[in-house]
């Protein structure tokens, strides 16, 4: 275990985050807001502290192992959430640090769960920062830093730990180049959305903030009613782009190198689209009576399904008042999530497919104990290690959700609110049902519950293993 590297890398990440904080500072200067000072204090303070600290733990060697990669990612995320929360508290706009931490974790993990009761009264610089954390957290902060510097000699361990999905591969031989390509695709798609939203009637600031929210599949809005007040065109644009950012980015690379055949053969993509189409149709028919026309019902249904499935969490209508069937569909979609290798959270469609195939195999095996079956996925034999890992992940996932549910039940709230709040946070969605539903927010929870939910969001975003490894004593023992 390379202890120095484990301390050194998070400090490097912290420094990069401090520099990125100058962007919202620039926005504050443009709008002549006093919160610019809170950014400058945080950024300067972090730089002043991290540079000598990094010198102190300068590693002898840049070699790291799988274990180190997990720990580095976990520590980096906690550290940068702690730093990202400071501007909110220093500027006094979110006085409680626990609240600010919740809000920032929610931002970086692209959850979009908010404790703000009056979003409209926040200064623009802080709103920009809030949404910018979505953008950074979506593709991964460390991947971003990796794209511009040479972090480690063995970057694959860090990539595996930060990028979601059961199988993480590189697009090109070099990790740095891979990170660059991913961010390039990411930025181009985001800019396209900004342009379309601008056409759809939003101001440049609104378009940028909402595009960041969509790109990271986060869901922070700048109005209490989220997207409901914008034009139908803007709503459709966001619906489509939420789906776009929920697709595995490897497919965009395949399209970029004109390998359309392989891209279109992706099983995960078709299942993902199928689930979206089916759910939208079901919900549309179910809520048809609540809206004046079929078109409006379809728009709201598609928006909500897309938003929940891609774990974004924008809303155009209070789906908490929808019939039970639609609510159940949305709850189930919360678990499934979008594709692996995208910016979205949840279990991921590919894991659901792998689990389904494993169940099929095991059932067959009970009928024919000597049968030999190979699970194939995306045209390739799936390694047993991946199948085991997926099954273990699924079990851990449920243990974590249940543990969170238990800890939250201390709150004087109903069962539905508590359970769905944990599910919505763990899967990085944001709005849940009941007390934490689309029409209200997480301000009702106690500070303790907010910390539990923050932990749930981090566990969900980093897919459990990094945090468990970082906090298990055996990792740190010298043996």
């Amino acid at each position, binding site marked *: 275990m390379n202890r120095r590297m484990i301390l050194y890398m998070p400090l490097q990440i912290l420094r990069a985050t401090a520099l990125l904080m100058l962007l919202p500072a620039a926005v504050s200067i443009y709008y002549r807001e006093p919160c610019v000072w809170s950014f400058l204090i945080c950024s300067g303070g972090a730089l002043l502290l991290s540079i000598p600290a990094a010198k102190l733990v300068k590693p002898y060697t840049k070699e790291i192992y799988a274990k180190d990669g997990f720990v580095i990612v976990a520590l980096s995320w906690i550290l940068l959430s702690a730093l990202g929360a400071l501007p909110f508290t220093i500027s006094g706009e979110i006085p409680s640090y626990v609240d600010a931490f919740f809000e920032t974790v929610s931002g970086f993990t692209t959850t979009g769960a908010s404790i703000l009761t009056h979003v409209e009264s926040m200064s623009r610089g802080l709103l920009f920062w809030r949404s910018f954390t979505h953008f950074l957290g979506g593709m991964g902060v460390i991947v971003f830093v990796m794209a511009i510097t040479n972090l480690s000699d*063995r*970057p*694959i361990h860090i990539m595996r730990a930060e990028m979601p999905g059961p199988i993480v*591969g*590189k697009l*090109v*031989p*070099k990790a740095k180049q891979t990170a660059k390509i991913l961010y390039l695709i990411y930025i181009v798609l985001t800019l396209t959305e900004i342009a379309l939203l601008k056409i759809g009637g939003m101001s440049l600031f609104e378009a940028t903030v909402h595009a960041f929210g969509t790109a990271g599949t986060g869901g922070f809005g700048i109005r209490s009613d989220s997207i409901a007040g914008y034009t139908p065109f803007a709503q459709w644009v966001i619906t489509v782009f939420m789906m776009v950012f929920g697709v595995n980015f490897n497919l965009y690379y395949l399209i970029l*190198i004109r390998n359309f055949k392989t891209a279109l053969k992706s099983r995960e993509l078709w299942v993902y689209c199928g689930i979206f189409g089916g759910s939208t149709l079901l919900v549309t028919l179910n809520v048809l009576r609540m809206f004046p026309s079929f078109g409006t019902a379809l728009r709201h249904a598609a928006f909500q399904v897309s938003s929940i499935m891609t774990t974004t969490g924008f809303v155009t209508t209070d789906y908490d008042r929808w019939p039970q069937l639609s609510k159940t569909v949305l709850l189930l979609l919360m678990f499934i999530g979008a594709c692996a290798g995208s910016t979205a959270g949840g279990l991921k469609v590919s894991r659901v497919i792998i689990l389904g195939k494993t169940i099929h195999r095991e059932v067959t095996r009970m009928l024919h104990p000597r049968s030999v079956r190979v699970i194939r996925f995306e045209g390739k034999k799936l*390694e047993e290690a991946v199948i085991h890992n997926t099954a273990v992940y699924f079990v851990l996932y449920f243990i974590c959700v249940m543990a969170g549910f238990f800890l939250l039940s201390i709150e004087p709230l109903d069962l539905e609110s508590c359970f769905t709040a944990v599910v919505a946070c763990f899967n990085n969605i944001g709005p849940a049902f009941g007390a934490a539903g689309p029409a209200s927010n997480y301000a009702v929870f106690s500070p303790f519950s907010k910390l539990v939910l923050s932990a749930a969001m981090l566990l969900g975003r980093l897919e459990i293993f990094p945090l468990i490894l970082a906090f298990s004593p055996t990792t740190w023992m010298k043996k």
Partner: protein
Amino acid sequence: MKIIIAGCGKIGSALTRSLVREGHDVTVIDKKKSSVDELVNICDVRGFYGNAADPDVLQEAEVSKADMLIAATSTDELNMLSCFFAKKMGVQHTVARIRNADYNDDNLPFIKQQLGLSMAINPEYQTANTVFNLLKLPSAVKIETFSNRNLEMVDLRLKSDSSLHGLQLSEMRDRYKGNYLVCTVIRGENVFIPGGDFTLQSGDTIGVIAAPNEIPKLLKQLKLMKKQARNIMILGAGRITYYLSKKLASLGTNVKVIDKDLEKCEQLAEQLPSCAVICGDGAEQELLLQEGIRSMDAFIALTGIDEENILLSVFAGAFHTSKVICKVNREGLTEIAESLGLDCVISPEKTVTDIILRYVRALTSTVGSRIETLYQLADGKAEAVEFVVTPDFPAAGIPLKDLRLKTNILIAGIVRNRKSMIPAGKDVILPGDKVIVVSTGRTITDLTDIIK
């Protein structure tokens, strides 16, 4: 450069590590997933697993965009097929490992031409060559040749009773006259390019560069000259032994080969009637003594098992056999072998890696010079590179003492019209010369790299 390496065996992974260190984009292919995963975990490369001659797998590895494919799987035919397909799919340079003797005869040029191979590598043959060179000059630990043997670099290990112990290099030059240059000193894990005030110690390995006829003169002065080995015992009747014995037999050396495997023994005895082939377990001391290990001039351990090679080499060393050469395949064991007092440890992987690296380096350097030869010294911590100077070399004609060289760089030799010289300050580099540069801690791909 974008390079695809098929086969992640010993040579494949050694190559991958070296090429990644030099900054190339490397993709590896192997049919064993665990080998691929292991490499992907320790190097910044992309891995695919599958048959390296399967066009689908090659396509997946984006072979059409690659500049070079190196096929180093365990099967010759697979390597050839893989290179053939890659060539058809648009790769410019293909290198195949071809080790089977059936292909390594007069047919090789035909095979290379038909498959469009840029290079065919036979690790056993190359290793046999290395061993052969070592035997010609038994006092050297290692010999590298430059520019068609116009210059040689010889590594000498200073024993505890060495007359050079405690001597500064300038004193050494005064005491032992000759046209030579000490260009590297390996001490422990460090490599130095020594200046005149550098003090030598026993235990150091010094690299001396000189014309081939100068080296015996120096060795005689140092009283290190040993007579050329006449009686040689080789353990293991593999392919290296075959190539080596063939070369040695042509010189009239007495070769005795010991191997356990009767079939291998019979095969060798049939191919090389002049060799004495003995079927028996080389690990039995009794057998070795019986076969006269005491009176041998050289003992060479070439079995397939590293541990056996190391142990028996140590055993042979105890009989004051003048030259003991030990083959070690696994990288990690080389250091252990050296720490046991074996100074002549050879590794087929390193030999092949050097050759391929040289080829790749030569492809990358285009501007002012061309790479002819490249040797990595001391686990790649230092290297000796031979360049051909092209007419557009900017520092041509300037006396060396006026050149502002980068640190840790030494111009160790110049070959002009087949005449070699150890350069002094007044000498100049001219277009058409071959220049040998020794450097530590940096990679040089171009002669212009050495100038500030």
